[in-house]
């Protein structure tokens, strides 16, 4: 609760600061006659987009309060299903069990690519899909076998249920599981820290999280870029979803429409993802 309060406070102060230069966009007109509170929780990948949209909306209409909390895809499903929040975000499609249990409706709004990443000092810049499968299955354990230094491979994976792990295992490992000897970290941030600190590391992060501290590896010659993910040339991609309990109404509906608007698409691109057209 206090975390929620703190986040609200941060959002509110950002909104006040940003008021100084606020050209009103037309798509924000939908919020003019609305008021009340909108709570959003779930996938960590969604947060930059959700926060930016929330700032725009609260700036346009101070009567609206929007809170954005993390927690992961599972928490997103649970909270929206139990009516604790109006929008629950997931980095994976809902399971049939979840749809049946809570009566949820999904809105895919962005494409996120997952990149295989190594330490910047590692000479290996490209791997084949077969090599990646062998590495994550624990069959290949030395970088020499992949054209690198003679050093043991430090394997890092994400925890079970992580959307990033699911995307990676489905698209890059063809639904195989990784070896149970791999280290498990529980966020994109922890993964980046682990890879940046360990010269022999290999792991995976959302493409939006690639920066100078780690290096993305090309898969079958396809470099992990947002463009490649959008065109479908880069194979390891996933959709980001917003989920509501039943068809969205009022403020929730307006928020979702804003994410799909032209302004929303700009926010999605800024966060490092590719906008996904509403069907």
């Amino acid at each position, binding site marked *: 609760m206090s975390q929620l309060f703190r986040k609200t406070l941060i959002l509110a102060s950002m909104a006040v600061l940003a008021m100084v230069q606020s050209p009103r966009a037309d798509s924000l007109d939908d919020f003019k006659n609305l008021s009340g509170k909108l709570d959003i929780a779930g996938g960590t990948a969604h947060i930059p987009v959700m926060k930016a949209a929330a700032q725009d909306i609260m700036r346009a209409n101070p009567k609206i309060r929007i809170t954005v909390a993390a927690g992961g895809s*599972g928490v997103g499903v649970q909270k929206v299903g139990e009516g604790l929040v109006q929008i629950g975000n997931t980095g994976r499609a809902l399971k049939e069990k979840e749809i049946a249990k809570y009566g949820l409706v999904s809105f895919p709004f962005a494409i996120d690519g997952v990149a295989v990443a190594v330490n910047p000092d590692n000479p290996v810049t490209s791997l084949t899909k077969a090599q990646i499968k062998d590495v994550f299955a624990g069959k290949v354990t030395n970088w020499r076998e992949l054209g690198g230094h003679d050093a043991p491979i430090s394997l890092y994976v994400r925890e*079970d249920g*992580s959307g990033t792990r699911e995307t990676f*295992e489905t698209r890059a490992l063809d639904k195989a599981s990784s070896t*149970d*000897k791999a*280290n498990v970290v529980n966020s994109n941030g922890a993964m980046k820290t682990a890879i940046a600190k360990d010269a022999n590391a290999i792991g995976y992060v959302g493409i939006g999280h690639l920066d100078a501290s780690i290096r993305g590896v090309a898969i079958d010659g396809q470099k992990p870029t947002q463009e490649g993910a959008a065109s479908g040339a880069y194979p390891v991609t996933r959709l980001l979803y917003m989920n509501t309990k039943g068809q969205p109404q009022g403020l929730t509906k307006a928020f979702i429409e804003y994410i799909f608007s032209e302004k929303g698409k700009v926010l999605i691109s800024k966060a490092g993802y590719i906008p996904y057209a509403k069907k």
Partner: protein
Amino acid sequence: MPRSNFLTENIPQETAGPWLWLGTVLAMLGVFCLCVMIVVAALPAFFSHSHSPFEWVWQPNQGHFGILPMCVGTLLLSFSSLALGFPWALAIAVWHLTEEASAFAHAKTAVGALIRFLTTIPTVVLSFAAVFLLTPFLRLHIGGTGFCLLGASLMVSLLILPTMILVLESGLKGKLEALCPYGLALGFSRYDLLRYCVLPQSVRTLTQAAVLGFGRALGDTLLPLMLAGNAPHVPTRVNESMRTLSAHMALVTANEVGGSAYNSLFAAGLFLLGTSVVVTLILRRLARTDTSPERP
């Protein structure tokens, strides 16, 4: 009863009994309900034959929900932390009570302050510091990725150290002070008194310190989560990655709601609770039987 305080003034004497009684019953009921709830919630996992938590493989997307590697991991980490931390705690507590410590008053004060300060450091700070200092050091010197049993157990032993020292010191001090006038007059040093008279008579204090230390080591989540590597398998060497039940629960609850993976967590909770109870009972029993009559 001429002594009057706000309690006896404001509440008639005859109601104080029922209030105390009610408080005790509520507290007991809370503990009882907690135990019943964990047991009841764990039952489906125990009787499910398709997704039994009692196997050695944890592969949720292939229908394997075994928590046994994590049970072993938890026991390995708590006992190794206790084994590393307890002698260290005993040494510091004994040193703190001897003349040697009094001779270096500044060092004594500094160590005391440091121990008390250690109790206030949040585990997330300890873990974060260790990720940047201890993990690369271990990677360089003992191989592996640095996220391993040894790293986690070193930090957990540091975590449980102050608790054990404070318990040991307060337990030993009273007995030592009582013996001092005669013992010192007979030419014993404070260390001799501790070594030959106080410690053999203080098995209960030693046990109490070990039980408290073990309990903290068993339940701590963040240190193993950030330092042990979390690979769901049984480590065969100290430089291998491993996962404790507490870290396992933290990892699974982040993403799962309902389903076999989630249900297996209650079995994990029951195991943690059971281990804590069993170890406490065994140590207490040892303490009772070992309190031998005074030696000459």
